[in-house]
């Protein structure tokens, strides 16, 4: 059973994330707790402390609770009933990190609207929450069917963190898993998008095959087998287009990831939901 925390605000991104989480609950055993962080600028705090401050905060929490209840109520036709949302007052990243740590959640689900520009994605990745999160984060950009999943692999040979996180969370989930090894096309290079057959010639795509073999054996430990394995070399735009058919994409990158990382570049362009784990 996944113990997941769903961050909600009264906005479109949260509405999408909420619906996606509900679809995910149909496919996997997941206990979903919603949370709302009421952010208040320092200048908005009332003067004084004690009873005054406490009453003011209580009012804020009550209003926020009603707003979030309204959002959840609007989706009740397509979602199982959830418990009352947790509401915290303070700085968004800090409060979520506290909650994740205190309650030992397995997963944070957050809605982030897909953007033509990659800056909002990079801003998220560089945020305190994403840097120090104690668990994987499922970033939901659009409402898609989470049925078809893929694990995104690149030159990084250590695929254990990604496979183990994915299997820990979604082992019980049915549906297909594909393995996708990608690299960006450099000037002068040809492009390809090839499905690797089990019994294909072993000389081609040597690095990808080695990584696939490791991932396959880790999946096999959980009695799972990838449906398809793909090797892709193309532009970031074309690879993200290919990946847009998936409803759930898992990827891992180092905590100190460089902003020029190919993995980040690609993840920023994918329009569906991405499960981000850190090494």
């Amino acid at each position: 059973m996944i113990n997941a925390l769903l961050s909600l605000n009264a906005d479109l991104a949260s509405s999408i994330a909420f619906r996606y989480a509900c679809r995910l609950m149909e496919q996997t055993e997941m206990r979903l707790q919603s949370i709302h962080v009421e952010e208040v600028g320092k200048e908005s705090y009332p003067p004084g402390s004690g009873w005054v401050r406490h009453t003011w905060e209580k009012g804020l929490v009550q209003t926020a609770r009603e707003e979030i209840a309204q959002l959840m109520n609007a989706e009740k036709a397509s979602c199982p009933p959830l418990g009352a949302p947790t509401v915290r007052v303070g700085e968004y990243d800090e409060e979520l990190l506290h909650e994740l740590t205190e309650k030992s959640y397995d997963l944070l689900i957050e809605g982030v609207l897909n953007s033509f520009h990659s800056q909002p994605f990079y801003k998220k990745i560089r945020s305190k929450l994403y840097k120090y999160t104690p668990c994987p984060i499922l970033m939901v950009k659009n409402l898609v069917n989470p049925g078809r999943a893929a694990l995104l692999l690149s030159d990084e040979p250590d695929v254990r963190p990604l496979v183990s996180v994915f299997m820990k969370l979604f082992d019980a989930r049915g549906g297909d898993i594909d393995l996708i090894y990608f690299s960006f096309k450099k000037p002068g290079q040809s492009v390809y998008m090839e499905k690797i057959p089990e019994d294909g010639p072993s000389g081609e795509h040597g690095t990808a095959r080695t990584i696939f073999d490791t991932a396959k054996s880790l999946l096999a430990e959980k009695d799972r087998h990838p449906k398809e394995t793909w090797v892709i070399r193309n532009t970031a735009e074309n690879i993200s287009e290919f990946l847009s058919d998936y409803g759930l994409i898992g990827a891992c990158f180092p905590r100190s990831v460089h902003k020029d990382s190919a993995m980040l570049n690609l993840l920023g362009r994918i329009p569906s939901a991405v499960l981000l784990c850190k090494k």
Partner: protein
Amino acid sequence: MKILLAVDQQPYSAHAVQQVAKLAANTWANVSLLTIRSKGEARKSGTAPTPIGPSADALFAHREAFLSHFGQGECPYTSSGDGKLTEVEKGVFEVLQPSQGARKNLSLRLRTGEPGKEIISEAAATQSDLIVLGCDTAGGCGWEGSTAVPRKVAHDAPCSVLIAKAEKAVKRMVCCLDHDRVSQASLEMINQMVTLNEARLTIAGLSEHQSLKPEVEGKLSNILTYYHSRGIDPWIELVDMVSLDAFIVREARWGLMALWMGKQSILEKALPKNKVNKLIKGSEASVLILR
């Protein structure tokens, strides 16, 4: 819904006829098939009570092509009138349809004059909801050799306009939204286009400084709910106004670009005539202007 389908004698009009036939089969719209003859052709026709010549011939041929899309017993339109174009006002001819028997109207009209102007006049006179016309992509979206006609119709029409580009399969429909007054009819039109083409729908919310206006965000949420209830999962993408050109260039390859251009839309300012012209003339995509 009333669709005005403007046709000429070129192959792209045959493509537009097929598009409208598919749309009409799903919506049972009233359809008006319109062709425009030049004053030169009118002079050649002389004082004959009914127009003769290539324009009239094309009109009847397109009617047959339109009706052939429907199976026997499925056609909501009458397949026969008296077959003659009769002048109903100066320079405007119509095949008078029998008033009984058909569940929906398919009228045939012929006007004389400058095509862009006549198409717009016809749309206003018949209170059409949608004008559809094809164009020749090889000539930069031309209509009988002139790129001015599709552009004029797109800019000046009182209703929505679909410029259907031949032989471009619609894989994805991209709709740009920057305001909150979206008509039910335009939502339904998008629904139909997406369903007919089995295309994926992307709704681009136009933002300023990476932030959506609350009313646009609210409208996007409603639109999302509307389409979900119809089994369509649109993608939402935020596009900053300053990047609209680049976004359109990227997305135009998918087949159909739609712009909600209400009077209160800042798209009118963000996409002034020359940019819309560029989209119509230069991109591979069909263009749907929603009003």
